[in-house]
């Protein structure tokens, strides 16, 4: 185990096009004859559709296509539950449900045509209070839920899309005998991903073949979604992702590719959709969910955690999307990285008529961690212990057994906590309006299949063909670095062919912090295959035994005979050498998880990443304004491949976490409509708000980790930030803020 000191830097290969403005994002592309797409969204957040009449829209000059549910196959789609149609058929269930699409020669005509579509509704009772949606007599968001195809393990029932428990021992009995018991209830507002690039989609048919250029993080899922909803073979669908302007999870999942493809088919012309910022807020069916969280924890006087009970209710919104696993993921974060003797956690993922929730950077974790880490600080106060000492006493470490029965091996939770505390100078004298807050968290790796090719070009350079997706996260640096190391070449020797589903084998995409872990493993396997072929060829050419050869500096040498060598460029010949991956997915750790329901595979955390953040915060008691002055972020994300890339993930994740802590929250009206779907009132952290951030990496060698000991790194940095900020605020004002974000009003009301 070691702390990384020296940067290992490699400038991103897509950098020059990005700083010169010559790079092309989806909205920058123009196809000859392209039309503009606009949607007609639901006029109510819950209503039965009684009539759709597109006659006037179709008659408008310049309109080439109007598409409704009648014009596409009647297909239900969705991740773990298939509960949604491309175009609403009989019912609209949230503000962003799409009733119709229009393709026209100009944006103005398309907008006018969308408004001319006549839609009659019978309004239905609106379910916006997702906690009340659990009641027996609540209005059902999906009255036909039983007819939907879905994962049996979800435990669906009426408005409950997912239900998960974690049970260990007898929590009630242990609470009754605890020396100290604390309780807390916390509520979080929904939060948005807000990539700076609004999404864009262009679809073009050539015969039966469809090409879609789209700003997605998951091209293969987008391909499958188009094929399923339009009932065409996947081999007829090619998804290409030009440069992607950020995602943060919001561009995961199949979204609008199907709608635009249907419009392009009907119009017999290429069609382009570019979202406005307002649409990017309300229409995307992809936000961080609101939650209600109730915790009760009992401890012995020495701090030992004898029991935890928790009840979590998560707002799924109108449709499943790819967020079906949230109940179990949230339950795992309600355990947190702690040793617990007895546990009873119950987590419900509930339909409502709000915007659908799906993965945003470390889905469910920041909200649960914010509540739990406040709850732990409240326990520390009740015990008369220092909050950091309480964590020292209760966090997991190597050899710990989690509440689901997973044995944790080679993790550095303790080291990250100690490092964060040391970096921030915990215990120092501070002005009375400042305090330091600390929080810890965890996050799993996701093992998944991936595939890749590496080919040599005639000049001895190489090309990596990978399903890895780049959304700013650095796969364009990681993949060449891995391949070059296997072949004794330099990362700069490689180009990448990527973000094109016709080129590379299937890949999960840029989600779950999985690219280095899985796509990295695949490109290494392909490079090893290529290396074997090169060694065979060199052995023949040099009349040497393969075992005596080594690859270095772009050549293959006979060890001990420096004059006997052949360059890879000489061997490359016509450029027919190519290696392909044979993928072996690492097994996940076992967890018996006896007595737990809603088991979706997350009851054990594969090669967990451990995180500790310590923050120094100033609170203006007169106004309730909190400002984060300094952040110390210590992470166990395994072995670090590229320090510039890894640090960048922490800087960005922490600042996103600060936004969630203090200013970012979607406000809904009584019918579940966005009230602040723009950047004026949904406030991101700016350069002048952002603090200094110090980053430390504690390198471990965790079993089941990715290539060269790596774990994921994209999602963990935003997990504990809001909890640490909350604990600092509470220290300054002497009261808890039980609502997230902790806006000046809420801080002031709590007691500033």
């Amino acid at each position: 185990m070691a702390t990384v000191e020296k940067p290992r830097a490699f400038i991103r290969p897509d950098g020059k096009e990005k700083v010169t403005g010559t790079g092309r994002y989806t909205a920058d592309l123009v196809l000859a004859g392209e039309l503009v797409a606009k949607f007609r969204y639901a006029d109510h957040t819950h209503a039965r559709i009684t009539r759709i009449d597109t006659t006037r829209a179709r008659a408008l000059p310049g309109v080439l296509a109007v598409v409704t549910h009648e014009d596409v196959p009647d297909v239900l789609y969705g991740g773990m539950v298939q509960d949604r149609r491309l175009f609403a058929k009989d019912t609209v269930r949230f503000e962003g449900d799409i009733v119709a699409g229009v393709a026209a020669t100009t944006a103005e005509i398309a907008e006018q045509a969308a408004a001319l579509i006549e839609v009659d509704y019978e309004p239905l009772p609106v379910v916006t209070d997702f906690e009340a949606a659990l009641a027996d007599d609540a209005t059902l968001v999906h009255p036909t839920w039983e007819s939907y195809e879905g994962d049996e393990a979800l435990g669906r029932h009426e408005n409950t899309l997912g239900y998960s428990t974690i049970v260990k021992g007898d929590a009630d009995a242990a609470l009754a005998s605890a020396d100290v018991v604390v309780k807390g209830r916390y509520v979080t507002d929904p939060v948005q991903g807000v990539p700076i690039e609004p999404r864009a989609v262009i679809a073009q048919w050539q015969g039966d073949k469809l090409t879609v250029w789209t700003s997605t993080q998951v091209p293969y899922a987008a391909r499958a979604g188009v094929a399923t909803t339009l009932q065409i073979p996947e081999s007829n669908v090619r998804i290409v992702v030009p440069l992607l302007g950020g995602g943060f999870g919001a561009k995961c999942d199949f979204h609008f590719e199907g709608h635009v493809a249907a419009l392009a088919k009907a119009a017999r012309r290429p069609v382009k959709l570019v979202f406005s910022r307002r649409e990017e807020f309300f229409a995307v069916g992809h936000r961080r969910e609101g939650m209600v969280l109730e915790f009760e924890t009992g401890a012995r006087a020495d701090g030992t955690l004898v029991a935890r009970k928790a009840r979590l209710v998560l707002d799924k919104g109108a449709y499943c999307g790819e967020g079906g696993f949230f109940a179990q993921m949230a339950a795992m974060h309600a355990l947190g990285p702690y040793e617990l003797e007895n546990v009873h956690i119950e987590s419900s993922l509930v339909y409502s008529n709000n915007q659908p929730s799906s993965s945003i950077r470390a889905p469910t974790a920041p909200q649960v961690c914010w509540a739990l880490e406040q709850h732990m600080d409240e326990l520390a106060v009740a015990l008369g212990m220092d909050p950091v000492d309480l964590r020292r006493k209760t966090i997991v470490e190597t050899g710990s057994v989690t509440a689901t029965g997973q044995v944790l091996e080679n993790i550095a939770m303790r080291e990250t906590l100690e490092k964060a505390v040391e970096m921030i100078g915990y215990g120092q004298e501070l002005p009375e309006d400042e305090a330091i807050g600390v929080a810890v968290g965890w996050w799993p790796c996701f093992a998944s299949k991936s595939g890749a090719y590496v080919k040599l070009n005639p000049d001895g350079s190489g090309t990596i063909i990978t399903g890895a997706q780049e959304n700013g996260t650095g796969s364009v640096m990681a993949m060449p670095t891995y391949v070059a190391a296997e072949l004794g070449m330099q990362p700069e020797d490689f180009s990448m062919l990527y973000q094109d589903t016709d080129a590379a084998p299937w890949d999960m995409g840029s989600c779950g912090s999985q690219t280095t872990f899985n796509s990295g493993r695949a490109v290494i396997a392909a490079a090893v295959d290529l290396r074997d072929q090169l060694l065979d060829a060199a052995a023949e050419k040099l009349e040497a035994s393969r075992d005596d050869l080594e690859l270095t500096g772009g050549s293959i040498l006979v060890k001990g005979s420096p004059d006997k060598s052949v360059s890879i460029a000489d061997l490359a010949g016509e450029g027919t050498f190519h290696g392909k991956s044979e993928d072996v997915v690492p097994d996940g750790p076992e967890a018996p998880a006896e007595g737990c329901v809603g088991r979706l595979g997350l009851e054990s955390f594969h090669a967990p990443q451990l995180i500790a953040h310590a923050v120094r915060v100033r609170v203006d008691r007169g106004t309730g304004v909190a400002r984060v002055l300094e952040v110390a972020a210590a992470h166990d994300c395994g072995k670090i491949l590229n320090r510039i890339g890894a640090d960048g993930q922490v800087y960005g994740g922490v600042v996103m976490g600060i936004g969630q802590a203090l200013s970012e929250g979607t406000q809904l009206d009584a019918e579940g409509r966005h009230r602040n779907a723009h950047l004026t009132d949904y406030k991101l952290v700016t350069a002048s708000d952002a603090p200094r951030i110090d980053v430390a990496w504690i390198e471990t060698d965790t079993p089941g980790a990715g290539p060269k000991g790596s774990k994921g790194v994209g999602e963990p940095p935003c997990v504990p930030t809001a909890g640490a900020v909350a604990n600092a605020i509470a220290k300054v004002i002497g009261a808890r803020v039980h609502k997230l974000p902790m806006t000046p009003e809420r801080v002031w009301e709590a007691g500033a």
Partner: protein
Amino acid sequence: MKVATTLNVNGVSYPVDLDPGTNLLAAVRDVVGLTGSKEGCDDSECGACMMLLDGQPVNACSYLALQAEGSEITTVEGLADGDTLAPLQTAFLDLGGVQCGFCTPGMLVSATALLEANPRPTEDEVRIGLSGNLCRCTGYDGIVKAVLSVAGSS
């Protein structure tokens, strides 16, 4: 009814016909054909469309194109000297100021204007000077370091 005008972008004069309501960003992207400047909000909130007008930064999404007649317009495409990157562009790449790259054009244009007005800014001055440009990837760390490094070396 279109109006004939001339836009001078990065030292090149473009004769164009524009609807009077066309904003400068749409004119430069869709009519002139330079797509480096981005639309992130169409509301002067994100700064991805930032251009220089006679050296002054403007949110081009909220500026009428016809008002730019007679002005020198500079976009991200005009910052490099041929194939040689400007020091700010190199520093952004070296110091982790670029991830997804969508805010980068506007950020570079704002940083150029900032250093022109204040060649030796403090860190606070850089942060305030760039607070009209939103970045969701970098936490601003690499961007601020890049601007300071160029200021220090100029």
